[in-house]
């Protein structure tokens, strides 16, 4: 069940590596059904923040709430979908598209159980939602980088998560795949009321659909507001972080 409060919240999150502060009091929240993007220059702490949000890294200070619960106490982890940063799959991996997407159902079904007919239909639906319905029996390694990324998105969508977190999902992906990627996310938000938290340099495909943009700079949230407000500062959301204004990039 979606909790009444935010589905994702960071409160004063602080992380330091060997004395170097990477995140310094990061605070924000994502509400149910909200489509939020996190941008920031290289070294801003995006990857570290993402690991803390997912429970893969314990913050030195502050707290994280995932679906209203501390990440390490969340029982139904499948309610959170995660698309890792990856543009290609190992060229030797012999797994088919269907096999990879079906692994997204394991935590919900019980990893030791055999797949049911309903599971097969869920895989079909997830593949169709990213326009890969015809390629289910192809090896993932034979697909283009954009198609492989859509396979990973379908794997995250197959459980119909309440919160979908994506790490640089369109890096190196062609325009057609970006459009299908955008359609799948918008469908998830509008039809299923899911929240989406996207970490990316490339927001062109989804810039018009975002409710909010967070800008992370120097381990702090430097901007949190509507895309139009950010655009008013002179930054384009459709391009790489190099186009961020000087006050974001640092000097």
């Amino acid at each position: 069940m979606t909790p009444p409060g935010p589905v994702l919240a960071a409160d004063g999150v602080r992380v330091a590596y060997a004395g170097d502060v990477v995140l310094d009091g990061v605070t924000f929240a994502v509400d149910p059904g909200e489509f939020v993007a996190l941008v920031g220059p290289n070294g801003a702490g995006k990857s570290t923040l993402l690991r803390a949000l997912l429970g893969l890294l314990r913050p030195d200070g502050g707290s994280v709430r995932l679906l209203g619960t501390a990440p390490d106490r969340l029982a139904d982890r499948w309610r959170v979908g995660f698309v890792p940063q990856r543009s290609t799959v190992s060229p030797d991996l012999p797994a088919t598209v269907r096999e990879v997407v079906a692994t997204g159902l394991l935590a919900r079904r019980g990893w030791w159980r055999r797949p049911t007919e309903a599971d097969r239909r869920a895989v079909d639906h997830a593949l169709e939602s990213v326009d890969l319905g015809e390629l289910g029996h192809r090896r993932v390694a034979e697909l283009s980088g954009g198609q492989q990324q859509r396979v990973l998105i379908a794997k995250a969508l197959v459980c119909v998560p309440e919160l979908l977190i994506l790490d640089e999902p369109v890096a190196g992906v062609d325009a057609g795949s970006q459009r299908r990627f955008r359609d799948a996310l918008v469908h998830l938000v509008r039809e299923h009321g899911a929240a989406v938290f996207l970490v990316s340099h490339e927001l062109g495909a989804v810039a018009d659909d975002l409710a909010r943009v967070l800008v992370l700079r120097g381990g702090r949230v430097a901007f949190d507001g509507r895309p139009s407000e950010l655009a008013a500062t002179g930054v384009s959301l459709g391009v790489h972080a190099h186009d961020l204004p000087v006050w974001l990039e640092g000097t």
Partner: protein
Amino acid sequence: MIVGALLPWPFEREYMQLALVAGLVVGTCAPLIGTFLVHKRLSLMGDGVGHVAFAGVAAGLLLDVWPVWTALVAAVVGAVAVEWLRSRGRASGDLALALLFYSGIAAGVVLTGLAGSLDAGTLTYLFGSILTVEAADAWTVVVLGAGLVVTVAVGWRALLAVVLDEDAARVAGLPVDRLNLVLAALTAVTVVVGMRVVGVLLVAALMVLPVGTAQRLARSFRGTLAVAAVVGGVSAVVGLAVARVWSLAPGGTIVLVSAGFFLLAALGGRGRRPALLAG
């Protein structure tokens, strides 16, 4: 014993039938585990565990305990240690394996020296002695092999999820640490069981070569598991027969047959050419 006099030459003798059973089980099971190790970039895991198993054999000889038991304990501890070093980020996968390799073989040499037992008997553990397998050994191999096949049949989808991306599997709520430990323990069991067939120095080859062959022939991960198991089993049967005909060392012959299948598949099969053949 098991199949009576039904089998034709070269498997008409009882010792060849026992060797056939042990070879078939190890040849079939080793690639099932190897498929996951190869795609976790831990192809040499079997080798590293084999070296530690040799230290266990030496400890058994020193303590006058059946070396298979001490080898099993050493192999499980070694495999779990590699997994611990790798998963905790204390060492990269290949560095953790190197630690295991050299510590294992060095401990084996020292312990063998202390036991004063570096003789032909010790060499059978290094290079295998499939033709001396007894009925009790064969049944042990069959039972362990059946347990391994059942475990893989139940858990292959979850292990595939871990192979794909450990972090994503962890975020999804899969018991990644436990699955990795199960894989490490199964690797150790496979090495010790394979010790009698091809020896600790060659058992890793049966974990890797049939997988290389299968991923050029099969169209899915499940298909790769099945084809690798068949190729490993056939390699054992053909290798045993060839070894009998030409009086060759059976362990090495089984591995060479497996390598031959890999070359045939690499030259004639689908998919990418392996780096070692790429021009």
